[in-house]
């Protein structure tokens, strides 16, 4: 009895298998299939049949298909020769095509390299498909916010409770610390990024050791692991196991033994650290509340086994925190660890994209630029075709098939694309450092599989895009009409060519508009009035300064000429330093939940940052008890709490009654992505991590040096680390900055390419009409009317492109600015500006070419040809 193997597989096999092999192969596979059926399931047997069929796709077994050999050598050589000759004859067209394509390929390659890198982030972990980061969603007054910080006991609890959790780790990232951390060796300070990790860390992440054993770290409290390059920096060699170094950060200062040296964290890791410490060392420095379930400090990542049902798992842990702390507002969710880099934005507790938007945007931009470059090629070669019509006609008369003509044009396109891609490699080598600086990445031009694949792919794509239309359009022409030299341009062909140019211009318009609007928006954000004055404010971290010295330090700093005021705080108004929900106020409903941004600040902070007081007074230590039972709130907080007379009313913060002594005007304590939230400020005497100094703008340079020398008196050797508030604020928008810079770059490339094409086309069209112009001149045409005649066609195209491009770019920019809580108005005159720029470009390229022809002396133009 015979069974029937999968039909589709059989059909596939017979499409490619040589006829004389059919009998034996089909026989063998049938026999195998029957054998399989005796021992296993039908599904497995079918699967194996497919496997065997696919494995017959080998050169020896493939049919020879007549006429498919693309590289029939003699014809191929001929095609190459003809192409090279035509390049030489039409040098200008060739150069324009080559330059355009090279720029296009270069842009596409840069984007390809960048995108590839973005996609490879964190993929090097061996368990990457099973690693999940546990995040928490917390309700705030601004909606549900998602944080990566989780309760300290979460990792161990997850591992104990759930069989699905194969391993779990809890670690403190370098971001946790506001101050700078150092390794100190013989009084030399080396800045580091330290990470405190528990003993599950290496079970989850695949970081490898260079010297020593990674388990040493958790054998005792006295060991650290350092990176290879850190070892080189400190000791000059990599094998430094057993050496002693001093570690210092804002929490602790202690001598450690180097337990081992790990290989540098790969550049495609989202986690960056060069020193690993035992998490127990961190926990030792914390108070008991560190282990409370409503305290969130470490990050938690788990590896789930492959049997896990993710949505069920998510459901089971969603309310986990509540079990331990009934008051906790946090809900747990998980996100695949490798997705965190590209999908890092959350809204209302859901993942809403992130960098992936840029990745997609740039893929589109890359394709558009490549397409623009290819359109140049199509237009110029179809336009030039009129001069090569005779060649075409003769070939056809001699019996060339349409297919061989198509091949010829593709060969030409392929040749030019290949030369362009070689040229683009040189361009990339030059532009890559610049590109890296713009994107803040470390891309390299390395000859590897990836680069070759990308280059080959892009070259082929360019060939297909640019070769297809000329090939099929020209090979279609009638023999007779091509011999007689008349191009009977049917309406259809004209329409295609014109729409290609329109597309090119529309893309140009959209890109110019994009650059304009992206840059306007970023300017707007960076210069927006935030409700405080961030200019000329210097800040530095209080590393190494004893609390008892702080007061003297302030006095000395205030005495420096040029310093207007100084204050301490643990919040620099640019980042997310946490919120609190522990506030009660008169008239609060039992289930009303409101979270406040809490800022602990020293005396004078409000004045130093230029935050404006609306009513009441600011903190003043002279009153003696401001730091114990007083509080300052912002307008938003007063409004949300519905306090009629905020100044003087009493609220309860963390169980203690505090009197509101002042209300400040709303200001942005976070980035402009977030709307203004209720703030609460309390005076704090100690534990302020940073000092802020307001300086007269003219005195800044002198003051920095003087502040540094004051700092050095108290810092016990810690280096002076300072920054400016306005720069810290700009840094929040570095993502937008990069996009703005890149959009300028790529838009520039696109416009250059389109201009090249347009120039080529314009010069060609007008040269063709040289004689006509000569005759018209003799008959008395004015220069103006000649220009009008020649440019009318281009003019129409541009107007059409504007008609499409302006509404399109209006729509797109409108969509984009919606991402911002505070966005510019998209105004009409942006588009007027775009239109103006288009006409400027138009006149520079087209008119210059036309003028050249029109200005030719009548005698010369009549003698032309």
């Amino acid at each position, binding site marked *: 009895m015979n069974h029937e193997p999968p039909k589709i597989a059989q059909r596939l096999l017979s499409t490619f298998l040589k006829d004389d092999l059919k009998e034996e192969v089909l026989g*063998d596979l049938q*026999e195998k299939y029957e054998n399989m059926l005796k021992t296993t399931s039908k599904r497995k047997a079918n699967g194996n049949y497919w496997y065997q069929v696919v494995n017959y796709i*080998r050169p020896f077994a493939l049919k020879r298909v007549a006429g498919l050999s693309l590289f029939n050598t003699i014809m191929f050589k001929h095609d190459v020769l003809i192409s090279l000759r035509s390049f030489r004859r039409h040098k200008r067209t060739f150069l324009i095509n080559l330059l355009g394509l090279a720029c296009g390929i270069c842009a596409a390659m840069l984007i390809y390299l960048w995108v590839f890198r973005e996609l490879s982030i964190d993929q090097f972990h061996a368990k990457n498909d099973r690693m999940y980061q546990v995040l928490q969603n917390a309700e705030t007054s601004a909606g549900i916010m998602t944080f990566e910080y989780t309760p300290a006991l979460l990792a161990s609890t997850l591992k104990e409770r759930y069989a699905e959790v194969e391993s779990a780790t809890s670690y403190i990232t370098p971001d946790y610390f506001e101050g700078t951390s150092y390794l100190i060796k013989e009084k030399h300070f080396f800045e580091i990024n330290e990470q405190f990790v528990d003993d599950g860390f290496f079970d989850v992440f695949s970081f490898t050791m260079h010297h020593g054993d990674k388990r040493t770290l958790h054998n005792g409290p006295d060991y650290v692991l350092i990176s290879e390059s850190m070892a080189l920096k400190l000791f000059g060699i990599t094998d430094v196991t057993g050496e002693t170094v001093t570690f210092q950060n804002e929490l602790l200062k202690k001598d450690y033994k180097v337990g081992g040296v790990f290989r540098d964290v790969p550049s495609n890791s989202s986690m960056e650290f060069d020193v690993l410490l035992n998490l127990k060392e961190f926990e030792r420095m914390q108070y008991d509340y560190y282990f409370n379930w409503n305290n969130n400090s470490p990050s938690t990542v788990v590896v789930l086994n492959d049997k896990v049902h993710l949505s069920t798992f998510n459901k089971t842990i969603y309310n986990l925190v509540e079990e331990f702390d009934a008051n906790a507002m946090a809900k747990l969710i998980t996100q695949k660890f490798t997705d965190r880099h590209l999908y890092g934005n959350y809204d209302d507790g859901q993942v809403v994209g992130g960098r992936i938007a840029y990745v997609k945007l740039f893929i589109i931009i890359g394709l558009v630029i490549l397409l623009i470059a290819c359109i140049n090629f199509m237009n110029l070669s179809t336009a030039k075709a009129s001069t090569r019509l005779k060649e075409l006609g003769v070939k056809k008369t001699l019996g060339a098939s349409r297919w061989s003509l198509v091949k010829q044009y593709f060969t030409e396109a392929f040749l030019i694309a290949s030369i362009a891609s070689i040229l683009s490699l040189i361009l990339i080598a030059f532009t890559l450092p610049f590109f890296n600086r713009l994107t803040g990445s470390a891309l390299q031009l390395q000859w590897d599989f990836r680069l070759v694949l990308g280059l080959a792919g892009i070259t082929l794509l360019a060939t297909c895009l640019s070769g297809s239309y000329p090939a099929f359009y020209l090979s279609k022409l009638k023999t007779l009409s091509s011999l007689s030299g008349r191009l009977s341009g049917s309406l259809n062909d004209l329409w295609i060519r014109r729409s290609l140019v329109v597309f090119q211009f529309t893309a140009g318009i959209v890109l110019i508009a994009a650059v304009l609007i992206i840059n306007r928006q970023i300017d707007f954000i960076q210069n927006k009035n935030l409700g405080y004055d961030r200019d000329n404010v210097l800040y530095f971290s209080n590393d190494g300064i004893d609390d008892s010295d702080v007061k003297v330090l302030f006095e000395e700093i205030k005495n420096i000429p040029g310093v207007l005021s100084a204050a301490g705080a643990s919040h620099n108004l640019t980042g997310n330093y946490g919120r609190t929900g522990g506030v009660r106020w008169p008239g609060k409903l039992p289930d009303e939940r409101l979270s406040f941004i809490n800022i602990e600040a020293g005396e004078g902070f409000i004045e130093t940052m230029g935050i404006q007081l609306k009513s009441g007074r600011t903190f003043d230590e002279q009153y003696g008890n401001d730091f114990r039972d007083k509080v300052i709130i912002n307008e938003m907080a007063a409004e949300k709490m519905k306090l009629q007379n905020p100044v003087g009313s009493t609220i309860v913060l963390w169980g203690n009654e505090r009197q509101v002594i002042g209300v400040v005007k709303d200001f942005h304590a976070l980035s402009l992505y977030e709307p203004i939230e209720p703030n609460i400020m309390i005076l704090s005497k100690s534990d302020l991590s940073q000092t802020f100094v307001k300086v007269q703008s003219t005195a800044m340079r002198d003051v920095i040096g003087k502040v540094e020398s004051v700092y050095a008196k108290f810092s016990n050797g810690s280096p002076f680390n300072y920054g400016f508030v306005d720069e810290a604020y700009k840094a929040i928008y570095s993502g937008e900055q990069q996009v703005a810079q890149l959009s300028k770059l790529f838009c520039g490339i696109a416009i250059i390419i389109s201009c090249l094409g347009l120039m080529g086309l314009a010069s060609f069209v007008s040269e063709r009409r040289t004689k006509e112009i000569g005759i018209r001149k003799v008959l008395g045409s004015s220069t103006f009317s000649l220009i009008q005649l020649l440019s009318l066609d281009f003019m129409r195209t541009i107007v059409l492109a504007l008609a499409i491009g302006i509404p399109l770019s209006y729509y797109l920019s409108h969509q984009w600015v919606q991402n911002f809580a505070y966005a510019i108005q998209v105004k009409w005159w942006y588009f007027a500006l775009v239109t103006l720029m288009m006409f400027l470009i138009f006149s520079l390229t087209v008119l210059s070419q036309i003028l050249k022809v029109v200005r030719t002396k009548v005698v010369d133009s009549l003698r032309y040809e």
Partner: protein
Amino acid sequence: MKETQLGNFEETVLLLVGILEDKAYALKIAEEFESQTGRKVSIGAVHSTLSRLTKKGFLTSEMKGASNERGGRRKRVYTITASGKHVLIQSREFKMSLWNQLPAFGH
């Protein structure tokens, strides 16, 4: 000595053809390979090697023996040629001579 023209896999397949005698067709050779080495191999991979060995003149083949479980199709049965035997012997001798020079296994 002249370098043998056999790859490792080729040599194994050639030997298997000799072992299997009149049952030496692609499927059986693949199965024998799997049971002797414990490694998985597709029939196509074996078949391509067989055809390469035939081209080199180490194997000949003929079609015979249709059976019902093959859907009435014949199979191609391979046999080693004289030059195939020669190349196998050469390869063995070459390896033996290398083994004999290995000091750890000295006489």
